[in-house]
């Protein structure tokens, strides 16, 4: 199985008013193609920091991350844009941005300097819009969308980016019940059919248990990657679920 993400000896954190806040340390992980990996952990444990760091949006304090063999660092933005797409929790809008504008932005790593899309690229955008069920909302302004449809729009953008790796930070948060399942089913299919590697953080543990191949369980003092079948017997996972599952 082709390895998509390799994390060696990594220490993660961010700077807050000049001071370095260390979030996760001694990370040694690897994720393969065709894997849908759920990231679970309590609030503030570092799920977002991990995802942003893998995408190169936060500098590493130590260590190295490789995506398809390419080191994630400041010089590699342009290459990385074709390797890894993110769905973050940050909101944006205004400036006449519509759904289709955002999905088209996903094509930006492939367009010319004037950011024009050719017919083939338009097709990719259309496909992404269809996959996320946004056909009837293409021309709506972002600020008119419900949180759920905004979420779908950003997911469609990530799909349009056509990357081998997709990182999603709590994408299920605002979706309705059926849409959550639709999303996970779609992601699983993408993984299996297109050999993608998808990491998704979520607090919807039952969803992750149902659809993911693996779980990355993050607690304050440990981080482990387990096959989803072992989750129910895993101490760290049980600690997070607190007996409710």
């Amino acid at each position, binding site marked *: 199985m082709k390895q998509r993400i390799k994390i060696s000896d990594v220490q993660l954190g961010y700077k807050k008013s000049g001071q370095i806040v260390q979030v996760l340390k001694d990370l040694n992980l690897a994720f393969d193609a065709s894997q849908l990996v759920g990231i679970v952990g309590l609030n503030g444990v570092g799920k977002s920091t991990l995802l*942003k760091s893998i*995408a*190169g*949006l936060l500098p590493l304090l130590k260590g190295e991350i490789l995506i398809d063999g390419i080191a994630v660092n*400041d010089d590699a*933005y*342009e290459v*990385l*844009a*074709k390797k*890894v*797409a*993110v769905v*973050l929790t*940050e909101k*944006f809008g*205004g*400036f*006449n*941005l*519509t759904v289709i*504008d*955002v999905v088209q*932005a*996903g094509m*930006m*790593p492939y*367009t010319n*300097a*004037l*950011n024009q899309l050719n017919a083939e690229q338009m097709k990719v955008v259309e496909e992404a819009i269809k996959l996320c069920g946004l056909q009837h909302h293409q021309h709506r302004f972002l*600020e008119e969308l419900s949180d759920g449809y905004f979420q779908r729009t950003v997911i469609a*953008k990530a799909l349009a*980016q056509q990357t081998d790796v997709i990182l999603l930070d709590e994408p299920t948060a605002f979706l309705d019940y059926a849409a959550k399942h639709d999303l996970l089913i779609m992601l699983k299919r993408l993984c299996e059919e297109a050999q993608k590697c998808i990491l998704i953080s979520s607090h919807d543990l039952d969803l992750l248990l149902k659809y993911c191949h693996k779980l990355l369980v993050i607690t304050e003092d440990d981080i482990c990657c387990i096959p989803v079948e072992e989750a129910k017997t895993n101490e760290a996972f049980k600690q997070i679920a607190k007996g409710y599952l």
Partner: protein
Amino acid sequence: MSNAAKFILLFLLFCIGIYMSLFFGGSESLNFSDLSADFIFYQIRLPKTITAILAGAALSVSGLILQVIFRNPLAGPYVLGISSGASLAVALSVMAGSGLHFLPGFFWAKAYTVLSSIVGSFAMTILILSIAVRVKKNVILLLIGLMISQICGALQTVIEYFAEPESLKNFVLWSMGSMSTTNLQDIPLLAGSTLIVLGLLLFFIKPLNAFLLGQLYAQNLGVSVKQKRFWLILISSSLTGIITAYCGPIAFVGIAVPILSRMLFQVSKQQVHLAACLFLGPILLLFADAFAHSLIKHMALPINMITTFIGAPLVIYLMFKNKQW
């Protein structure tokens, strides 16, 4: 109406504006039979018209860039105090420069003023940007910008207090903002520098569009955010700096024109708005200038009065329309 039709309309208005500025500016329409009319046309109205076109284009593009970078539709070089920073720098450099006679010739003296103005506006933009990352609400940033421009204004008053009477008069006239302070000799430097800086923007269309999604998404889309942001800030403050050096601080054009452009063209593509600003800005200033010259016979009103009457209500309207501030 299609976007192409809108652009044709803008172009027509642009031509009407030029025609008015060339042939109806000042007190009387021109009679080309005598020599003074020739002088008025070439030394006053032609440079004034060119200046208004360049200033309108440069200030509105400068405002557009700021609004995108700050992701704040209420940003602009005047309301954020960047114009004040530029004029303070000009005041300082003129004061310091009055003792220095090492700058030979007209061109270098002007270039020196322009450069100080650019430095002033760049420093102010960096200051505002460093404040902006700590401020969550757009309106707070606006208030901080206003306070900073008050501080710059106060400092400027101190400088004026010590200035020579003759240079003081020129300086005060300049700081009121005007399209009529340039003559034909000024045009090569003014037009050359403005057009070069505007031309650089062709390389930044993708980053401008990407910045709309926020810095993190922009970076994930392959834009080296820090580098592009630096250049865009440099371009924006150069445009404000160049124009402020010649025309003084011009109010509200930089904030109002991009807002008008987004109301007129309901798209998010920044290349469309850049093009629209190149027409809308000059139209606004050409008409404002014609209006300033024709409202009261034999007297020109300050152009800032008119741009404020257009710009300030727009800002208020936008605050009411968007509840998210």
